[in-house]
């Protein structure tokens, strides 16, 4: 039998507010252990929570960007369970009246668009961090109380690739909103997955597994792929699947059952008595809607329309908000009507350099103006060749210098005056009589060989187009 995977993702997102959800402690990453805590986030007896206005605004912003219906009446609840990273032994979360529900996110895979349902987006607080030692565990509460959003998708995803695309698209949207770092390494974006298999075409759901401990989007994809294989094998051999939580082990590339045995979960949710309810008015929603910038999908469509880019180019350039901003600035400043060269330079060499430095394109020491100048030096003015252009670009990224300056300093300008070129050509003809003869007998390759020799003789600086034209003229006239 052929089985079809059914996947739902649960994303936890840190909001990048200055302070924690319920107290004034800083949310800055990377300080000393237990240095960013106070009686409130430590859950000290007698302390009380007060919710962060900005966290609420950000949460509404995300909910709206994910096309959710923001509820007029929402409240916090306590989720009760004992764990040493949870100082109060309850987490302030939302249960039966979440901030928002019924949204969607469109993803695109292989040219096909697919709408993924968003069940709910709700607000909660993060827990602390445990560091496991040989014989004990150490607790750091710095992360405790950082405002979190839980974004739950419908089980609308049917492959690891779709899950990956969903996460990438989601991350891209959130980055555009400027409400989270979305950094999986820092834990500001985390993802758990629910996956089950069912006979293709069937409507009923199979026994699901909850996957945890994936530390990257690729990890999510790999864990899902592994789990599909594992469940497939069990189903084919008619073995029973357990409903369980499994942890992804990135080292061994497998999922393993969680070892901690916990009885049936009973979180005993009840309304948080320390926090009055929230009423989200229409005018509040309108106000926040106004702060939502153009999102990736809209921006992509506009890039196609305004700059004549291909859908592929537009999508790549708009995936990251920083790249999109940089690209747009560059395209605007680039005077030619055809913006394709800009897209090529950014998607090709510039993305390559940023990739090597593992940073965003916009973080490189190259301004849009400088890039425009470089492209014009190559494409329009033909001061340097495409190849030299790439060398100059690399140097620009390293030094922050203007391309013109680099060309001058390194004497990289193309030789485009015919006198100089002709003297080079004369030398080449003299030194390669055999190739000249070959050309005359109609061997086309010979011309390219001679061009190559001339280029070498000019130390790569000869304008290749001119060189070829002049060489051909000279040979044909002899």
């Amino acid at each position, binding site marked *: 039998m052929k089985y079809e995977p059914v996947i739902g993702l649960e994303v936890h997102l840190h909001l990048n507010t200055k302070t924690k959800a319920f107290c*004034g402690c800083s949310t800055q990453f990377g300080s000393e252990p237990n240095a960013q805590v*106070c009686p409130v986030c430590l859950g000290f007896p007698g302390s009380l929570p007060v919710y962060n206005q900005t966290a609420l605004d950000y949460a509404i912003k995300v909910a709206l960007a994910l096309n959710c219906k923001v509820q007029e009446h929402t*409240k916090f609840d306590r989720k009760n369970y004992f764990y*040493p990273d949870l100082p109060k032994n309850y987490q302030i979360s939302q249960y039966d009246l979440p901030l928002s529900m019924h949204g969607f996110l469109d993803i695109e895979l292989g040219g096909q668009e697919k709408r993924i349902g968003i069940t709910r987006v709700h607000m909660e607080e993060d827990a602390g961090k445990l560091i496991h030692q040989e014989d004990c565990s*150490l607790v*750091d509460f710095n992360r405790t109380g950082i405002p979190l959003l839980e974004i739950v998708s419908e089980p609308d995803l049917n492959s690891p690739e779709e899950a990956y695309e969903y996460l990438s698209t989601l991350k891209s949207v959130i980055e555009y909103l400027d409400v989270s770092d979305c950094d999986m390494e820092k834990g500001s974006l985390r993802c758990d997955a629910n996956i089950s298999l069912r006979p293709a075409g069937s409507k009923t759901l199979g026994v699901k597994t909850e996957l945890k401990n994936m530390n990257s989007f690729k990890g999510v994809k790999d864990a899902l792929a592994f789990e599909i294989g594992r469940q497939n094998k069990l189903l084919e051999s008619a073995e029973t699947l357990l409903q369980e939580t499994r942890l992804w082990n990135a080292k061994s590339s497998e999922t393993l059952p969680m070892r901690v045995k916990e009885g049936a979960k009973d979180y005993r949710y009840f309304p948080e008595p320390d926090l009055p309810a929230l*009423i989200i008015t229409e005018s509040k929603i309108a106000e926040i809607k106004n702060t939502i910038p153009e999102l990736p999908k809209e921006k992509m469509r506009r890039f196609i329309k305004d700059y004549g880019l291909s859908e592929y180019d537009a999508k790549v350039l708009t995936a990251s908000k920083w790249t999109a901003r940089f690209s747009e600035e560059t395209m605007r400043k680039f005077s030619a009507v055809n913006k394709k060269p800009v897209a090529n330079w950014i998607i090709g060499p510039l993305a390559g350099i940023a990739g090597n430095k593992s940073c965003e394109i916009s973080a490189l020491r190259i301004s849009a103006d400088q890039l425009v100048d470089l492209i014009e030096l190559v494409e329009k003015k033909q001061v340097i060749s495409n190849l030299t252009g790439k060398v100059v670009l690399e140097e620009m990224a390293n030094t922050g210098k203007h391309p013109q300056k680099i060309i001058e300093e390194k004497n990289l300008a193309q030789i485009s005056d015919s006198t100089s070129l002709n003297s080079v050509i004369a030398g080449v003809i003299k030194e390669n009589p055999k190739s000249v003869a070959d050309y005359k007998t109609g061997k086309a390759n010979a011309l390219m060989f001679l061009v190559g020799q001339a280029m070498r003789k000019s130390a790569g600086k000869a304008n290749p187009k001119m060189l070829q034209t002049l060489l051909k003229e000279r040979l044909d006239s002899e």
Partner: protein
Amino acid sequence: MGIDKKTVEGVAHLARIELEPKELEKLSHQLEHILAFIDKLSVLNTDNVPPTSHILPLNNVLRKDETKPSLSIEKTLANAPAKQGNFFVVPKVIE
């Protein structure tokens, strides 16, 4: 609805309280008694009554996103039954 010893045992586990057999016995008995009294609530028809979890008509109590000083590490750890460097220490979590 009643409460038996097994239920009390389960609930005590949820609440992370160890009970000696004698304690469990006594407590189950007392809770049964108390719950029998509480069950008088079931005679009321509450179908169309909204629940009250907050008595005041307060909404949207929020604070500005402004940083306040955190506690010093000394103060944070001053009451700790066990500590190591800047950390609280607990018995091993994964058993």
